[in-house]
């Protein structure tokens, strides 16, 4: 989706660096210009950007209620974290009771969050790349797969720039919804996991889960990447290689289709088993748990203080997580839930709620088993599934997995129907607002079905996309 601005092959190292810097600077200037030109007030209330969970208007209302002496969760308006209120509330409305300068200041926070997210993507990309190339070197795959050189753009650079220049990210950031901050938190946890920094990973996970609930599933990839490493080749592959090398003195090519020339091996099998074998670091997992508990306690205490006397933690839980799970509000968004639950008969509601939510849960275990050796990719798959099956998705969730996608450039290079998928995606992304406009603003009767279909279509494309990703990711194995 993003424009790979600086795909200068063979350009000098400094030229590339300059180009990257320029891209970053231009992205920053574009955002600031959009904010200053007043885009937040236009974008901040679009359904594609703001949902009941991340809406800025609701944050302002929650802050107003809190300041008036109510619990911020009085009335079914605010469904976010009380900490966001404490942090961003003071920037929302003026005390005169006049109209707030909508999203202006929050958009500034979002810009910072976007930059941090891009930076984290960059770092995640680098550590991913180093992990991969280490393996490849060890397995003597370098002959077949070209290692990226230092002078060129790394995966991380591309991912960061793609994230910054993704129109969805820009729109989401300028719209001033809290999802860019949540995205930054998710990426922080992934970065912590990639860098082996347990407290950081736990912090990111706890905060993002606290804010939007769904990142809870990311605990598995985070735990995995902390314990077994960020990216591996499949276990079987290793075993067969090691087996080939140690026991039979035959060329490895007999064991594997993609043969490895033994003479070029730079690592011994001991090295292999030491470096990239699956030593399960239980200590890290224990640390992760302890840190998570610590951060949860910390966050909950802060919440308790922030909610104040008028509210309670129980109310907070029921109004944030309970709201996300119950899907009480049926305002349009990019997801599948709202129109379905508008139309479905009341007595089927609990059943379908269960089915819809279970779709995320059902896939956790199989995907974990299948992709346990590549926790980062697993995290990406989880993010994309969540973005699709969330009860209140927005473009913010889409930007997250679109931002992570370039990290798996190599895996996705063999994807089929790319042209068709990409065009379909863009087409649906453009048509969906049109349909919505016709239904809501022009008030054409019976336009809702078209709108919902196009919304569903986005999901379908996301799904196909992901399916493709998953499928072709395995081609490399």
């Amino acid at each position: 989706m993003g424009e790979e601005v600086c795909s200068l092959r063979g350009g000098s190292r400094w030229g590339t660096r300059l180009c990257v810097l320029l891209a970053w600077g231009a992205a920053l200037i574009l955002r600031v210009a959009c904010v200053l030109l007043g885009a937040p007030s236009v974008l901040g209330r679009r359904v594609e950007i703001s949902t009941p969970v991340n809406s800025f208007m609701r944050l302002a209302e929650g802050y107003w209620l809190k300041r008036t002496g109510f619990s911020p969760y009085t009335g079914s308006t605010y469904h976010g974290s009380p900490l966001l209120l404490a942090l961003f509330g003071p920037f929302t409305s003026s005390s005169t009771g006049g109209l707030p300068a909508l999203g202006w200041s929050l958009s500034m926070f979002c810009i910072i969050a976007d930059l941090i997210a891009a930076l984290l993507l960059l770092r995640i990309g680098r550590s991913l790349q180093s992990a991969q190339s280490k393996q490849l070197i060890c397995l003597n795959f370098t002959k077949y797969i070209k290692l990226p050189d230092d002078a060129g753009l790394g995966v991380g650079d591309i991912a960061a720039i793609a994230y910054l220049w993704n129109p969805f990210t820009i729109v989401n950031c300028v719209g001033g919804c809290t999802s860019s901050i949540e995205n930054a938190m998710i990426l922080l946890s992934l970065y912590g996991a990639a860098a082996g920094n347990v407290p950081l990973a736990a912090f990111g996970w706890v905060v993002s889960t606290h804010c939007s609930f769904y990142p809870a599933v990311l605990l598995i990839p985070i735990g995995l990447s902390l314990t077994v490493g960020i990216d591996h080749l499949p276990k079987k592959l290793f075993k067969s290689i090691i087996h080939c090398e140690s026991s039979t003195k035959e060329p490895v090519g007999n064991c594997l289709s993609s043969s490895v020339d033994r003479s070029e091996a730079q690592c011994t099998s001991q090295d292999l088993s030491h470096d990239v074998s699956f030593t399960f670091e239980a200590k890290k997992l224990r640390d992760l748990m302890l840190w998570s508990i610590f951060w949860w306690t910390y966050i909950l205490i802060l919440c308790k203080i922030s909610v104040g006397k008028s509210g309670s933690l129980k109310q907070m839980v029921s109004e944030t997580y309970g709201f996300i799970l119950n899907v009480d509000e049926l305002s349009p968004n990019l997801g599948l839930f709202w129109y379905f639950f508008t139309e479905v008969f009341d007595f089927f509601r609990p059943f379908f709620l269960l089915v819809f939510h279970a779709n995320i849960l059902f896939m956790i275990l199989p995907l974990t088993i299948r992709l346990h050796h590549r926790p980062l990719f697993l995290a990406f798959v989880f993010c994309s599934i969540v973005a699709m099956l969330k009860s209140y998705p927005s473009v913010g969730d889409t930007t997250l997995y679109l931002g992570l996608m370039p990290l798996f450039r190599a895996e996705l290079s063999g994807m089929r129907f790319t042209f068709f998928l990409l065009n379909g995606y863009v087409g649906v992304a453009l048509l969906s607002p049109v349909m919505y406009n016709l239904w809501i603003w022009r008030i054409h009767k019976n336009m809702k079905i078209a709108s919902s279909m196009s919304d569903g279509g986005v999901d379908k494309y996301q799904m196909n996309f992901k399916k493709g990703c998953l499928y072709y990711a395995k081609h490399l194995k």
Partner: protein
Amino acid sequence: MQFHHYAVLLLVASFPVLIAQKLDEEEFSEELLVRPLPDRNVFAHFHFTHRLPPTVHYGSHHVLFPKAIFQIVQKFRIREMELSFTQGRWKYNNWGGVDPLTRLQAKPSGVELWAVFAVPDDQVDATWGNLTHALSGLFCASLNFLESMVMVAKPKKMFASGCGKEGITPLVCSEGFADHHASNQSRSKDQNILRSRVRYGALPREAVCTENLTPWLKLLPCRDKAGLASLLDRPTIYKGSYHSLRLYIKSNNFEEHQGINGDIGTFLQQTLSLVIPASENPSSGEGLKGFQPNWSLFSLFGRHLMGRCLLAKTSALYLEFEAPLVEKLKQLDFGTKDKEYCSLAGSEDEASLLDCSADSSGDIAPFSLSMVKDNDIFMVNGSPSSFSLERGAYGNGVLLSFNIPKHGKQQPLNVGLTWKLPITWSPVRGPFRATRFLVGSGNARGAIALVLKANNMPTRDLMNLHSQRSLEKESLVSPDMTSVTVFQVVPWYIHLYFHTLQVLIDEQPKSFREVIKWMQVVPSEDRTSPGVMEIELKIPYNASVITLIVEFDKGFLRIDEHNPDANRGFDLPSALLSFPTEQSEGNYFHIEATKSSAHFHNSALLEELKRRKSVQVYTEVLLVPLATPDFSMPYNVITLTCTVLALYFGSLLNVLRRRVSEEERLAKSKGPSPQGLLERLLSRLLRRRSVESRARIAKVLKLMLVAGMFIALNYYLSDS
């Protein structure tokens, strides 16, 4: 001024005592007030009052008091209740905005119900629900839609009658009055308790028709067979531009200190207000420009008033001339000095006599009263039994009172009005003209704007004077400020953003601290409770336009929450504006012109009108269109969405369990795929059979297993 104030206090305080001396049996009274309106309409107000002594003294066997109402009161322990069915909208600017009668009967269109209960706080909601059901059965209305608290508000200031024990105080005691004289702590505590037991609900879309009127008439002892109610001809009533049926109950039966003030046990007030076009009479000078239409009771209702209801203690007919009309008439009087027609004149202090001689047939008379035997209008016996001057703040109005004969078969009382001179007048308007409208387009969001425009009319000076007078008395706010209380209930599917609330005075945004004196906001809960806004504003006197704007997001309803006619939109109940500094009160100084003016003393209607109340204005009902889903094809949506989900699930599963080429090849090289448990078992048991037959048996066994499981499940489920 001081004296005046105390006089009112005394009046209010002494009224129950007056009644207490008299009331040891049930009472019923019927009254009708007719008033010509400036826009060629006539306003008729039927006022029926029942009084019942306290049950502790009197028991529960009644002669006159309707049993249905008594049972409702006893069962639901109602302290106070008002129910109104209204069709059309009261035009405050054309028909008067401040007089006590307007305050009494101007109601929002549709159904409005509020009640104060004498039950513990935790039972109030349940009691309210039962009450709505009982009333909906009694009045054939869809009041049961108010059962759930979705559209029911708990007002904090409005409707909470502050003067619970001071006799009968229909509607609201003036808020300011109640607040500033509640020196007694226990009393204010009582008020708090009362306020927590007030419920208010409105159904703006309810259609009002004869099916509501008939049960209402059934509550009267004479029904519509005799007395004033016999005038109520259904087609006439419903052809008018405004129609308001009202029922007000107040009961002292559940007061703790019943002995002290237990003068009236239960009080029931039934009123019906109509604005009907005055049909022209061919014999008079109709068609001439500027002439008001002539009318008589018969021409209005198409029926003759044949006599009184014999069960009624009081039975009276009043003809009211508003103060501005009287002023106009006076001017005409001064213009033409020599006359021998009905002269209506009232000086400031003493009302001069109403001189209406029988043979007054002067051509230049502004109007003539008529009591006619038949259809023709001629001026005989135009003398009412008594007349009174209403001394409000806006000058003097005149109230003529007629005795209704017991049996009027031979000579029905047909009060009529024939205009002799063209005359136009404008009624006394309220301090502000209130309009409420929606801002914005589309089905996603919008804003509600409430605009108050000062009525720029000569009486504004008068009003100023009056207000200052009332300010001196009550010192509510600083002298150059007036105050408005806005009460607005908004259904949950209109998500108000209270932080966007803006108050503009003369187009200038004002900060809350400057403008808002008191505010009570209850945000709406989805599908549970409505949003309620009660704001008391203080406004400088010279302000000409006051605007309140609140933004909202429109909610999206489930398919079964939409009304049958969903594309019409949803009605937002009227907002209620109250002006605590503007008191509407009538002071009737009756003049004993004739001997039979006794009923002036105990006329329930006049007592009612004498009570001080703040001016109230109901705004329009708003129609909000909401985005409608496709009602025709819920199945399509369900199947489409489920297909998308199934596609996702299936493809993901497919990808997950598909082996990549390497693994597949590896797996193949190991030999045939390992068999399932069943196959292995079978192969062991049936060694002699061929592989194919074994597979077949395995298949059949599997089917049987599945079928058995289903049967077991079915059995288990049906059992439980």
